């Protein structure tokens, strides 16, 4: 099962490598990884999506908590939550494709953020599966390059992840 773990991490050199090292060392899988400082500059927030049964996720959570730089860990998929992933995709946009791509992007409420003579860069934000669908919907359009931010997420309602 797919899980989203959100981790508050001391914003220290080497902290990220401890988290990533734990996953590789113990054979856990990282599907996406997103990390950036929070409003509190001493803290980074890291979101990792991984897969595993309850037992495995429990072990991952426990091991994450053991890392001295980790302040808090929460499994967002345990409760109601929102998740967002951002996709940038560079496509070849020539001739009739130019309009076709524009229409598809509008349907998915995406944006064209760069217009070249024969290319577009498209931007789309949403849950991962929406981004996957969009890439599929591009159909025969030639996709030249793709980059995704990885999932970031939060619990709905009053629940917060704070130190």
């Amino acid at each position, binding site marked *: 099962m797919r899980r989203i773990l959100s981790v508050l991490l*001391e914003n220290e*050199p*080497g902290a990220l*490598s*401890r988290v990533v*090292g734990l996953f590789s*060392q113990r054979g856990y899988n990282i599907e996406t990884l997103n990390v950036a400082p929070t409003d509190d500059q001493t803290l980074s927030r890291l979101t990792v999506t991984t897969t595993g049964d309850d*037992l495995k996720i*429990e*072990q991952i959570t*426990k*091991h994450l*908590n*053991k890392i*001295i*730089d*980790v*302040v808090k860990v929460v499994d967002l998929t345990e409760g109601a939550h929102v998740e967002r992933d951002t996709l940038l995709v560079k496509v070849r946009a020539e001739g009739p494709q130019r309009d076709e791509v524009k229409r598809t992007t509008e349907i998915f409420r995406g944006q064209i953020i760069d217009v070249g003579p024969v290319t577009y860069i498209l931007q789309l934000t949403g849950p991962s599966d929406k981004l996957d669908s969009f890439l599929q919907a591009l159909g025969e359009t030639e996709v030249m390059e793709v980059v995704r931010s990885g999932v970031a997420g939060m619990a709905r309602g009053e629940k917060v992840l704070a*130190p």
Partner: protein
Amino acid sequence: MEMLSGGDMIVRALEDEGVEYIFGYPGGAALHIYDALFKGEKVPHILVRHEQAATHAADGYARATGKPGVVLVTSGPGATNAVTGIATAYMDSIPLVVISGQVQSHLIGEDAFQETDMVGISRPIVKHSFLVKRVEDIPATLKKAFFIASTGRPGPVVVDIPKDLTHPEHKFPYEYPESVSLRSYQPSSKGHSGQIRKAARMLLGARRPVIYAGGGVIQGEGAAQLTALARRLNYPVTNTLMGLGAFPGTDRQFLGMLGMHGFYEANMAMHHADVILAVGARFDDRVTNTVSKFCPGAKIIHIDIDPASIAKIVPVDIPIVGPVSTILEELDKQVMQQMEGAERALPDESSLNQWWQQIDSWREAHGLWHGRRYGESEAIKPQDAIQALYQATRGEAYVTSDVGQHQMFAAQYYKFDYPRRWINSGGLGTMGFGLPAAMGIKIALPDADVACVTGEGSIQMNIQELSTCSQYACPVKIINLRNDYLGMVKQWQDMQYEGRYSESHYAASLPDFVKLAEAYGHVGLEVRAHKDLLPAMEEAFALKDKLVFLDIHVDPDEHVYPMMVAPNGAMKDMWLSKTERT
């Protein structure tokens, strides 16, 4: 405020932390620190002959005293040589603070001379590590390092310090913090009362209980509490390799060690138990054998300081996270209250009696000495050598070991009545651990008898420390069970590879250990006949001020038994001798 250089700060911080000894080896990136040490004069430094030995010596010191061991090495090869010792300490949860010199800050990342990314290289084998960036941070970083190493589930902490930060002319205000608090690290101080109550109820309702106690009981200072609880309940106790001494080895309730080379009665009792109280143990693969066949009828209570150890291998019915000492104390109180408040006698006397009868019959059938007796052959049996060591030291010695057959024989045949007396590398299984560890213990406890049980394979992995033992007058006794083979490798080759001794034999090239010991200024004694065994052992320990190297020629064909059957065996499946199995 006092102004100190980074080098002086390190030395002062170690003094302020109450450090008794530093084990180390100087080199370029650590020279400013060594110069500060020279001027400091307060904390004695033990100069080893190889950095691996520094970590093992500090580790032995920590295991015997309960205080964190301190290591000081230089960058690059100094640091990488220390890695095996750090991994050894990590696997057995031993508190170490390892200070490594690093190349100057501006050279980091440039493949400078003797540069290695110590924080990176040690990352999977440390509890935590620091790369210090500013001189002002040195005191607080060291305080944190000691705090993290010695609290919660203990472990090694690396502090990597670039050379420019220790420069004698760059002085900054020094203040050693009284205490430290980390928002991301708050080890639990007490177990959950509700869980403890439930555990007491489950324990008292048991009909075939076993207490399975590991190294956590020793590291967590819970041996007295464990013994009190076990005696109140009259329940059988088994210890892991790391837990020997957590419950008195000579006690009637003690079933011996469990696991791969555990006692027959211990493994049988585990397999047939209905309630297992696991304390400070981690269901290691050397204990469980095939996990799916592990203790099929047992409910499990698991007490451990580390939540990640709980339900890692085996599902647990009642988990209790926290320090074993306070939890065992509270559990004992709960047990006592529930016994007093119960309408009928608890635990049920007749089922407990039956259980003990069953255990006694197992003991009788295949106990450790079954079918053999001390001194029955002219050739020396390795088991008899350990028995003689036990007699000569009246069971009071600190015994370190290396890794292999001799280690298992020592664990089986030396009965440890106290915690912190049996000191071996259980988790990592590091050959070469024994001699430097013994050195660390003897330095800390000069009046104690310290024996290093080893083999001619292991001892050669750190034999250079015979020189350190001369320099610091460390009269440890080396009990070399010499069988001219890598004994445990040979045993496996006998059992699983039809006796093809691939690279496990080297008799013709072994040194004359007696002369070797003498070359370092020690005493060497060779023992070839059983009749000379005990007298030689007694002579060795009578030579109080001398390191004695006892080169004991033992029967090379001896195997360690019992031995759990693998793969696909349960704990009850054991070889009991070369021909018998359960």
